[in-house]
């Protein structure tokens, strides 16, 4: 049993924290939250230079570190309330290719990702916004060596700046929806692909992507045909734990600024942090954050080790989501009116936390998953 980061992880943490503290100021955050693209090419280039875009990608394909290193960095990105296509590209896109891709596909896409040349995302959810195989109604029909994809994908993160989409579609007729899904990698410029932006409260860049008879070659299939769902589940596990790591960082930073405010702000002759109601709120925030962090790292560690992690991922996402919600509520309550204004930084954290929570299944969904894995 060891709860400590190792040397490499500590290094990644310091690297990411220093970079983000220096570069991702409140001013930049405000700009990016309102920006249509949500990132600047300069920043992306810097991420690539630090090899952060290669995190969890095997060294053979230009990457560095493992999934746990990525999680450590994502927690830091949460602390900074970092908005960018990093999550889409590195967590969703790269993970998908790492999990499912042939050596050829890995050669083709992974070095580009780690070099910052390729932005890529996952198109999974549809109208029901559910992360189960039966919710996938988009169809890919085989025509000779090609496939023709038709359907509408929703909540596709960063589609508007992506070069490629990984699209889950029905290929087979199997009654069991788990046995009829395949994954495709689709160049966004393929005829028939169109994106419409969905505006969110958090500055998260979401899109509706329509596939209208989009023809892709058989080379674009990721993994085996009809056997995509088990891959998708692994990708979803990583995605959910990654969201947890973001939430841990968001909550930690919310507590930090709340603690500082509670020490400084005077009311009725005392720093408000001396009042028992504020102390008990803050104590509960710390419990929520410590518990969240351990639940997250346990799940991430299992994934990283290749151990079964469905139960631990479900626990982490269900628990961290609620904990983070409680933390944000308390942060606002302690801040009072000042934290209720757009000028204050807190609301970016609150909003991003909700975006992370609902992304890839909410609390009840994950509790249901947990029930089936207990």
């Amino acid at each position, binding site marked *: 049993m060891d709860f400590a980061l190792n040397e490499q992880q500590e290094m990644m943490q310091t690297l990411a924290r220093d970079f983000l503290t220096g570069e991702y100021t409140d001013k930049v955050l405000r700009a990016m939250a309102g920006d249509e693209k949500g990132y600047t090419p300069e920043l992306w280039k810097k991420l690539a230079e630090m090899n952060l875009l290669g995190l969890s990608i095997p060294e053979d394909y230009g990457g560095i570190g493992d999934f746990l290193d990525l999680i450590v960095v994502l927690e830091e990105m949460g602390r900074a309330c970092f908005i960018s296509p990093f999550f889409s590209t590195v967590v969703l896109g790269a993970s998908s290719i790492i999990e499912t891709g042939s050596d050829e596909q890995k050669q083709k896409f992974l070095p580009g990702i780690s070099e910052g040349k390729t932005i890529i995302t996952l198109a999974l959810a549809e109208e029901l916004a559910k992360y189960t195989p039966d919710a996938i109604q988009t169809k890919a029909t085989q025509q000779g060596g090609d496939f023709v994809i038709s359907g509408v994908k929703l909540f596709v993160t960063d589609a508007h700046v992506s070069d490629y989409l990984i699209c889950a579609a029905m290929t087979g007729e199997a009654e069991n929806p788990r046995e009829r899904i395949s994954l495709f990698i689709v160049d966004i410029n393929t005829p028939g692909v169109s994106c419409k932006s*969905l*505006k*969110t409260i958090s500055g998260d860049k979401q899109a509706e992507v329509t596939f209208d008879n989009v023809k892709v070659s058989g080379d674009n299939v990721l993994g085996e045909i009809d056997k995509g769902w088990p891959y998708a589940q692994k990708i979803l596990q990583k995605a959910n734990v990654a969201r947890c790591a973001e939430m841990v960082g968001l909550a930690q930073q919310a507590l930090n600024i709340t603690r500082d405010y509670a020490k400084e702000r005077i009311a009725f002759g005392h720093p408000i942090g001396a*009042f028992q109601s504020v102390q008990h709120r803050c104590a509960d925030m710390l419990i929520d954050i410590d518990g969240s962090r351990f639940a997250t790292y346990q799940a991430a560690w299992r994934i990283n080790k290749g151990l079964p992690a469905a139960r631990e991922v479900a626990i982490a996402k269900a628990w961290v989501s609620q904990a983070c919600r409680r933390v944000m509520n308390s942060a606002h*309550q302690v801040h009072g009116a000042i934290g209720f204004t757009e000028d204050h930084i807190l609301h970016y954290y609150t909003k991003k936390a*909700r975006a992370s929570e609902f992304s890839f299944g909410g609390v009840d969904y994950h509790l249901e998953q947990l029930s089936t894995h207990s």
Partner: protein
Amino acid sequence: MDFTFTPEEEAFRKEVAAFLEKEVPQEYREKRLTFFDMSAQHDWIQVHRAMAEKLGAKGWLSRHWPREYGGQDASPFYRLILREELSRYHSPGYDSIGAGIVAPALLLKGSEEQKKQHLPGIASGKVIWCETLSEPGHGSDLASIEVFAREDADCFTINGQKIWTTNGHFADWNALVVRTDREVTPKYRGLTFFLVDMKTPGITVNPVINIAGHHEFNEVFFDDVRVPKENIVGGLNKGFYVVMSLLDYERTSDTAYAVAGTYLEDLAEYARDNNLLNPIMVNRLAQLRADCEVARLLHYRVTWMQSRGTVPNYESAMSKMYGFELLQRVSEFGMELLGQYSQLTGESARVPMYGRIPSCYLRSFGHSLEQGTSEIDRDVIAQRGLGLPRLR
């Protein structure tokens, strides 16, 4: 004991409903706006003023006032019914500060001249008010108010900055508390309550946008603003007592319970129509409905006390806090119900319910802060309602 309204009250409710059925702009009803998010509408200020004048013309804003000031000596349940129907019909037009707080405070503490000068404007719906207590350095702690009014012949001259002034950007008059004595202890004995015309030279109003993106609050800067002495309410250096009774009215005038009930049923309808009601959601919905009923009863108790001439004490803090915290829970329920769709703003494609879910949710962070935080309400309930001692 009686848990119904009188036939007269029921008739009044029908009359109000019939009126609102016609008069509330279609867009407000279609979007099912609440008191707390309608201010985000681009045309809100005009619609609000227009509706206020219509309600005023009906005599409804002052029906529960004494006859000598234009009222009909009606029970305060008429005001309650009016506000419930306004909530149910998604209607603006009730100046919760002028009609809700300033008028009753003036009726209690105002001079005859002040009543004569200001009550008709409020009753008619033509004069909109704001109130200004807080300052940047201190919110709930009145005793530390620093903005100063210097005596100056027949006037006081005010300098300094106030904040969190709801509706300050279009209100006609301001109910204001400032310091007039810096030496006195305890410090709360150096405060004075003024009525200030917002057109007085030297007043600058800057918007403070809340986290839902709504413009309700403002900073108000006073730069040598001269206010005549006759605009003092309750006497020089006695502003604290005026504020206390004002806060009592503030706590009793809220409509959070009504807004929560309306919003919850909107959500229930949407959930039913969109097949979102699994057994877990059905259970949570029922729980919130029970909570709404209790919130309603806690509020009715306060109004009933007022109807008997009793001054509510801890009861209003309880009703106000429970209602506002309930509204937060209902807002959270909306988020859970909508899941990932709860992220979409009103401007987005695919947005359900015109984007009201996230709008209400974000606005709800303010609810446990309004009119004194929930912490202060609980202090009040424990100390006034149960006689528990203060620390030291």
